[in-house]
C-alpha cells in the first residue's frame, strides 16, 4: 500500500480526481458526453434530432431522455424548424453548455494523459 501511495502516477490520479469536484457529475455518462462534444463542435448551428440519432447511433428513448436532461440543466436549447417540408427538432448548445464542456474536456484530457 505504501508503494502505491508513493507512486507519482497514483498521486497525480488522486490530485486530478480531487479537481473533478468543480465539474457537474450529472454529465458523466457516455451518451451525455457524446452529445455535448458533438454539439459543442457545431456551436450556434446545432444539429437535428435525426442527425444526432444517426451519427451517434443512440436508440430513440435514450437519446430523447438525455437531450431533455441536458436541456433541463440549461446546457442545450431546442427549436422546431422546417427543412424541405419536414418538421425537425434542432438542438443547440448554450453558452453555459459550452463552458461546462470546455471544463469537462480539459479535465478528461488531463486524466487521460496522466502518467504518460
Amino acid at each position: 500500500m505504501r508503494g502505491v501511495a508513493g507512486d507519482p502516477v497514483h498521486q497525480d490520479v488522486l490530485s486530478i480526481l480531487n479537481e473533478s469536484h468543480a465539474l457537474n457529475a450529472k454529465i458523466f455518462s457516455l451518451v451525455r458526453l457524446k452529445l455535448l462534444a458533438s454539439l459543442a463542435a457545431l456551436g450556434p448551428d446545432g444539429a437535428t434530432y435525426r442527425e444526432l440519432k444517426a451519427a451517434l447511433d443512440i436508440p430513440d428513448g435514450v437519446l430523447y431522455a438525455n437531450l431533455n436532461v441536458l436541456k433541463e440543466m440549461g446546457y442545450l436549447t431546442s427549436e422546431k424548424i422546417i427543412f424541405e417540408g419536414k418538421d425537425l427538432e434542432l438542438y443547440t448548445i448554450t453558452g453555459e453548455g459550452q463552458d461546462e464542456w470546455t471544463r469537462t474536456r480539459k479535465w478528461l484530457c488531463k486524466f487521460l494523459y496522466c502518467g504518460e
Partner: protein
Amino acid sequence: MSMAKRKKVIAFFKELGFQLDINRFDDRLVAQKLVCLLELKGIDLGYPCSMYVRGPYSPDLTRDLYEFHNEFEQFTTESHLGAHEKGTARNLDRIFGLKPILLEVGATYGYFSMKDGCSPLEALTCVKRLKPFYSEAQIAVGISKAKEFLFEPTAKDLEELKKETSIWQKASLRSMEH
C-alpha cells in the same frame, strides 16, 4: 488571412447567386456544403472540412458566417474569382442547383471517397448510415451529382467509355440505314 478567405467565399457565393440568411437552417447547410464541395474540388478556401454529426463540416466557417453575416448577406467583397474559379462555380451551380439535400449527400459522398479513401461501395454505405433519413432516390441522385462535379474522367476513362459505347453507336447507325 482570415478576412481574405472569408472574402473569397463571399465571392463564390456571389457568383453562385447564393444570398445567405443566417437565420435559415437550409441556408447555413447550403453554405457549409458548397464550401466543402469546392474544397474537395481542390479550391483552397481556408475552411477545411472534417467529419461531424452533420457530415463534413467546418466549425471555422460557422463562426465566420455568424460573426460576419452582414457581409455574407450583402455580398460585401473585394475579392474576384479567376476564370477557372468562375468555371468551377458555374459547374457547381449547374450540377447541384443550390438544392440542400443533393448538396448534403454529394458533399458527404465526396468526403468519404476523397478524404477517407473509401471505395464507391464503402462511401455509399457510409452515406446511407449517416443520412438514413433520405430516400434511396435522393441518395442516388446526390451521389451521381457528386461524381459529375468531383471526378473528371481521365483520358483512359474516356477511351474505355468510347470502346464500351461504340458497339451501341454502330448498331444504332445500322438500324437507321434500314
